[in-house]
Structures are given as C-alpha cells and as structure tokens.
C-alpha cells in the first residue's frame, strides 16, 4: 500500500517537472519558431490579430504566433523572476515599460524597429518599449443633456452650466488629476510636476457628483444608460456605444492622447523573432492597418495618413492639435506616492 503512495507521489513529481521544464525550446536558424503574443483580449486583440498577426504569419512562414490574454504586469514580472518566460511580445499600457520596469525587459532593437518614426516626444520610451496604438482619454457627453456642448476640461468641472453626474476613472494615473489642473488654469506645458494640492482641491468641487468606474466597459455603460451626463472614457469605448446608437459625443476640443506599448519580457527564448514582429507592427506600412478594425490610431508618423478613411473623424491622431500628453516618465517616478495620496483622498 505504501509503495502505491510513492508511485502517486512520483507521478505528481514527474508532472510537475514536465510543466516546469517544458515549453519553448526553440532556437537555431531556420527552425520553426512559436511566438506568444499577449494583449488585453476582446475586440482589441481580435483587431490586432487581423491587422498584424495573421498577415505577419503569412509573410513569415517560419513563425507561428499563439496568443494569450489578458496582459498582467504581475504575471510578466513573476515569469521573468522565475526564469520561465512563456510570453514573447506583450501589449502593455502607458504605465509600464519605463525605468522601473527595465529589469524585466529586453531592449528594443532600433536597428530594425523604426523607433525614430514613433514620435518619442509624444510617446515616451527609455528604449525598452515602443508604441503600437494611439488612443485618447476623452470627455464624452450625452447630446440630450445640454443645449451647448462642453468644449473644455473646465466645462467638465462646471456643474452649474453643465449639471449632472460625472463618470470618473478611479485610478490616480488615469488622467483625472491632469484634467483638474488644466480646468483650474494650469497651462498644458507646465502640467508636470503635478501640483497635487491644487489638483485635489479642484477635484473636491465635483467629488460628490462622481460616479467612479474601474473598467472601460463601465465608463461607456454609465453614459449609455444615462447614469451620468458627462464622463471620462477612452475614445474606442465611446465609438462602440455610438455604433449601438447611444446619444453620446466625444469632446475633441481637449483630450489626453496616449498609447499602448509593445515590450519583450527579459529571457524570452525567441528574441530575434519578437523584434521582427514588433518591427512589422510599428512600420510605416502596417501601423495604420489596425484602424480598419477598431478606432485606434497609428503611432508611426508616416502612417497617420494611411488610416481607414471612414474612421478619420473618430481617431485621436486627427485631433493632435488639441491633445495633451501624459508625462509617463514623471508618473513612473512618482506613481507610488501619488497613488497612495489618491487612495487617501478618495476614501475620505
């Protein structure tokens, strides 16, 4: 009887070893390579598949791409720490891939990736990430709520001229602090370092009218349901509810433009193929392909005029003259302190 127990234990140990040690193992020239691409899932990742991954596989028969979702920074870090990296290319938000995350990433090879064309002044990088899509943090409003549409972040904070509840992103780095300072009169080029006292004082004026959201789906849903008359959201989310007939418009007169980025986890078994995929996605020829399937814009400045003509009016790159940018580097250095202060404020 006891021997049976040991047999079971041995079997478990074998399974464990197989799981831990398996996976990957490619390398060598000319062999078939399997790349794992991880992104945010849903309609977004489907669009990325059609616009980039499938054409890339057709053009590169030696590379097969498998996919995972959703991206999770903690998981990526844990993979790198454990030395068992199973993701090769990851799509991350603007809050990842700068100095504090470099230890988990491979540097981007700018000899094949067109780094210079990817507007580094607007989409900051320290060499370990490049932007793949451009979107905006926007204010959207119900067209049936006001006679005159809002035209500035100041209007978002003006509860007298624009009464009703506000949809507010419950995340310190989500853009609300920047909106508050600009509404309070801070010139966009002097936004950073953020004056937190001033920002929270301004936010206090709308705090009890805020309906706080955590996910993009919620941000759009509360506008579509009429729970709020005006709310922060992301331009792609608003486009979706507009297609479903919601009486909602985006205020393009003032918005915060930002990007998603591609990174390569440190210790990937396929660094060369990963760099090739990133070079393909960000190239002037392919960067605009995504706009055929979803309202996100190309970061490559040479691709901006190649976007799907039917979506020009819905893309943030069309309104870059009214756009404000996040200072991701400042955020990377200050996130912990600001986020703690944010939680203290929002809990009070």
């Amino acid at each position, binding site marked *: 009887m006891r021997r049976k127990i040991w047999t079971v234990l041995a079997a*478990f140990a074998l399974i*464990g070893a197989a799981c831990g040690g398996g996976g990957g193992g490619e390398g060598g020239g000319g062999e078939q390579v399997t790349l794992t691409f991880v992104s945010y899932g849903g309609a977004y990742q489907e669009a990325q598949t059609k616009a980039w991954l499938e054409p890339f596989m057709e053009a590169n028969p030696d590379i097969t791409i498998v996919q995972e979702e959703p991206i999770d920074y903690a998981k990526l870090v844990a993979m790198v720490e454990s030395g068992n990296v199973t993701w090769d290319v990851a799509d991350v938000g603007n*809050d990842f891939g700068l100095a504090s995350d470099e230890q988990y990433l491979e540097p981007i090879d700018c000899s094949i990736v067109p780094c210079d064309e990817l507007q580094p002044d607007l989409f900051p990088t320290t060499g370990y990430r490049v932007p793949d899509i451009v979107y905006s943090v926007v204010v959207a409003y119900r067209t049936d709520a006001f006679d005159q549409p809002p035209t500035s972040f100041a209007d978002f904070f003006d509860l007298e001229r624009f009464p009703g509840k506000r949809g507010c992103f419950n995340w310190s780095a989500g853009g609300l602090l920047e909106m508050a300072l600009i509404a309070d009169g801070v010139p966009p080029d002097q936004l950073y370092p953020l004056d937190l006292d001033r920002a929270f004082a301004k936010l206090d004026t709308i705090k009890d009218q805020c309906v*706080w959201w955590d996910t993009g789906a*919620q941000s759009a849903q509360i506008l579509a349901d009429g729970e709020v008359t005006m709310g922060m959201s992301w331009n792609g989310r608003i486009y979706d509810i507009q297609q479903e007939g919601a009486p909602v418009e985006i205020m393009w007169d003032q918005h915060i433009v930002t990007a998603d980025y591609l990174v390569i986890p440190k210790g990937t078994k396929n660094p060369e193929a990963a760099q090739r995929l990133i070079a393909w996605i960000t190239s002037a020829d392919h960067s605009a392909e995504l706009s055929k399937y979803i309202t996100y814009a190309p970061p490559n400045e040479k691709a901006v005029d190649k976007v799907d003509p039917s979506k020009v009016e819905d893309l943030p790159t069309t309104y870059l003259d009214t756009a404000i940018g996040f200072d991701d580097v400042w955020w990377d250095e200050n996130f912990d302190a600001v*986020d703690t202060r944010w*939680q203290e404020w929002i809990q009070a």
Partner: protein
Amino acid sequence: MSQVARQGRRAGSIRSPLDAWALLAMPGFLFLVVFFLVPLVRMGLRSLTDPSPANYRIFLESPIYLRVLWTTIRTSLIVTVVCLLIGYPYAYVMHHAGPKTRAALTVLVLVPFWSSLLVRTYAWTVLLQDSGVINSVLRDLGLIDEPLQLMRNTLGVTIGMSHILLPFMVLPIWATMRRIDPDLVPAAESLGAPPRAAFRKVFLPLSLPGVFAGCLLVFVLALGFYITPALLGSPQNAMFSELIVNMVSERLRFGVGSALAMTLLAVTLVLLAIGSRFVRLGDALGGMESR
C-alpha cells in the same frame, strides 16, 4: 456490489488509516499541499524577505490600510447580520414546508450558485442604478422625483453581497434544523409550553450550532470579496482585497502585497479563533456535510 462497499467501509475504520479509502484522499491532500500550502508559506516568507519585514510598515505609512481593513470587517459583519435575519426564517420555513414547497425554496436559494458572480452583480446594477428598473418604476408611479440612492454606497454592497452569500447561511441552519428531533417541540407543547416558548426554549437553542456555522462561513467568505463592492459600492466601500490587487498588479511590490495578504489572513484567523469560543469549528463543516 453493496456488500463489497460495506466491507470496504468497515475496513476503513480507525485502526488502519492508510488503507484504500485514505488513499482516495491523497489527490486532494496533495493538491492542497502543492497549490495552497506551499504558495502560502512562500508568500509568508516573501512578506518578510522581499526586501525585508519592513514591508509591514506599510500600515504606518498611510492610514488607508487600517481604515480599509476596518471597512472590510464592518461590511462583513453587516452582511452576516443581514444574511442571518433573512436566512434563519427562510431555513425555518424550508424545514416546516411540504416537499414541493421545500424543493422550490431549495432551488431558489441555490440559484445564486449556478450563475456567475459577475453576471449577478451586473444584474443588480441594472436593477439598482439611478436609471435602473426600481427607480424607473417608482418614478413612473409618481412615488419619487429624485432617484433613490440604492447603489454606489453601503446599501448596494450589502444587497449584492448578501444575495451571493445567503446560501452559506441558509444551508447549515437548515441542515441543523433537520437533525432536531421532530417530537421535541410537540413534547414541550404537550407539557404546557405556548408555541412561542417552545420555539424559544427548545427549537432555537438546538438550531444555534447551525446559526454559528452559517455566520462563520458568511463572515469569512465576505472578508475576501472585492469585485461586488467595487461594482455596487463607491470607492469608500473598497475592501482590503482591492488594496492587495493594487499593490501586486499595479505597483508590482510583491513583498508589500504579501504582507497585506498575510495580515488579512491573520485577522481572519484571529476572528475565527474568537468565533470558535462560541462554536466548535467542526460544526461548521458538519452543517455543510449534511447538505
């Protein structure tokens, strides 16, 4: 066949614990060791070594951690009381109902087990929000001008969580009631006790183990919630788990996140220890077993 089974069961007596029946428990035991105990120990170590035990100083750095811990305990207490107030009469009716009514009541209380937590929470949103079903009906009837604040506050959190956790209160109580000798209450009444006294002095005390078991289950499960409070409450209703997620997934400070998680675990164990002064923990499991 049945004889074989009976023999097997007889063989599974206390004298030889490592027989075939004990072996059946091995996969479960190994699973718990590999996927629960080992990670738990590693997390405990991490909270002390990544980079140092100073991780626990997070509680001194900002008042929010203790505040949210208190919110979490308070919310769990409120939900436990609400579940008890609804669950005890419900179990009592189940116990005394005829077979058909009981089957219907059982199905009703089990339905939450069969649908996803997220779907149920969104369904509550559709009902409770300002433009939701309840407020729309009340407004159409002319009963209210301004929408009632039914969610994005403690009320919404309590409604949503109580709905999800109610089965964990009803089932142990009902299981305990079923084991009460059905002749005891009539016996008390035949000796002259009015129905109310018979209930209070005979039935209620005998059903208390189920009550304690249900309360413990609901309270401990409630401590770990965070999606429902996030969707039906306001940021002021945030639960401790949300801070852990924030620390691990957004700030990537695994050591501090581990310290927060270990603290929640320690608080849970302390509260369980206090609870176990009133009830043997085994009763909680016994109650569930006879479901």
